[in-house]
């Protein structure tokens, strides 16, 4: 029972797709100067272990993929996935430290996209990411549960702040408030606290019944379809409710 083979044609097609002016120039001119090393917290936190040097991480992943024209074995791609998901958070700090402004995180994200397409994204991450498609949020919270949570928080804080409302799907507000799914699931008091601030400030705001989770796990996993879906849910809510701005705490 062997692992499925790598779809080399698909990998090659992705590599060609990514190779625009930015990727080509970045890969062409990196002078291996070492300015990026100390910008990386993986590097400094591991006592300056050179394998965490940002440029090296790209050389070992995307660099290798281009060099081998996508012809990599499963083991090789697994190693690349370990680097792309495990040794880099795609925080983009290194691109601020690079004299050429090479956007290493964008290239790591491209590697994640390739790894994800070959089933090499971390399992737990992919499971949670798939919840975006089914539930519209990564923590599989249903709309009923979410509305109940909002009502519960209104009641809970009635005494402290009379008239406190957490309006769901109210049309024509100024502000659409969206957040981290964790707040609904584990820290509902965070929603109440945000509501108190809006209430005290006299803000005309609402909370969408769908598209309120701003933790885009599709983006972290490198799954373009889920990434677009999660982002679109929020934009759709903003259009549907006719708000002026989207306000996010995540």
């Amino acid at each position, binding site marked *: 029972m062997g692992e499925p083979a790598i779809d080399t044609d698909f990998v090659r097609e992705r590599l060609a797709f990514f190779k625009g002016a930015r990727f080509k120039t970045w890969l062409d*001119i990196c002078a291996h100067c070492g300015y990026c090393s100390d910008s990386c917290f993986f590097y400094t936190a591991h006592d300056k272990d050179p394998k965490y040097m940002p440029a090296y991480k790209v050389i070992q992943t995307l660099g290798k993929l281009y060099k081998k024209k996508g012809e990599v074995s499963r083991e090789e791609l697994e190693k690349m996935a370990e680097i792309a998901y495990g040794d880099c958070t795609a925080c983009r700090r290194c691109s601020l430290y690079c004299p050429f402004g090479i956007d290493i995180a964008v290239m790591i994200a491209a590697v994640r996209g390739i790894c994800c397409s070959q089933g090499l994204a971390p399992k737990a991450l992919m499971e949670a990411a798939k919840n975006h498609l089914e539930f519209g949020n990564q923590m599989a919270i249903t709309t009923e549960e979410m509305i109940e949570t909002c009502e519960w928080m209104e009641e809970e804080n009635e005494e402290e702040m009379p008239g406190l409302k957490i309006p769901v799907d109210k049309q024509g507000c100024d502000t659409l408030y969206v957040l981290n799914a964790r707040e609904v699931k584990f820290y509902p008091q965070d929603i109440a606290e945000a509501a108190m601030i809006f209430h005290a400030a006299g803000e005309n705001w609402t909370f969408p019944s769908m598209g309120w989770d701003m933790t885009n796990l599709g983006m972290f996993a490198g799954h373009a379809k889920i990434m677009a879906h999660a982002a679109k849910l929020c934009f759709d809510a903003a259009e549907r409710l006719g708000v002026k701005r989207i306000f996010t705490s995540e």
Partner: protein
Amino acid sequence: MYEFVTGPLAWVAFGIFVIGMIVKAISVIRLASKKDKVVFNHWSWSWSFRSVYRWLIPFGSRSMREKPVLTTAFFVFHICLLAIPIFLLGHNILWDERWGITWWSFSETTADYLTLLFVAAAVVLILRRLLLADMRIVTTAYDYLLLAIVAAPFVTGYFAYHQWFDYKTVLIIHILCGEIMLIAIPFTKLSHMLLFFLTRAHIGSEMGQRRGAKTW
């Protein structure tokens, strides 16, 4: 031989350098307009200009300030690299004879010391690659080859000025090294001479215009 390397071959070298750089710039910008739309939808001349400017002045960015030894070597290397050939008395006399153009030049002693300074900076850059673990892991033979291509005209020029070995031969080798460097620029990592401005402007806009973060 001397007539050939300072005549037709010099024209070829300068021609390849100039045309190569123009072609490079146009092809990169054309490819970007086709495949990299994100470069343009947040383009900002102000953020681009500031980003480029901060990285052109010594210690102008936080990254540079955090690595003072590298930054010093890096700027001495690049400033000497550009200034010595342009403001060298011998070169000025040469193009005064050939094309009747001339401008201000260094005294011979100044140029002599600057060349030593340049070589010292190159040695620091090589030592970093040899001694530091993070540099060793990314350095390839190609990096040393490029350093050699860039340093060769200066080392041979120093030899020629001091008339060590056979002057005529050393001078021709010096000119050839300079021409090899010019020809190599558009086709190697040395093209960063031009592409630096494009990538720097892009990241300046990307971080600045998109999210208000400065890249220096």
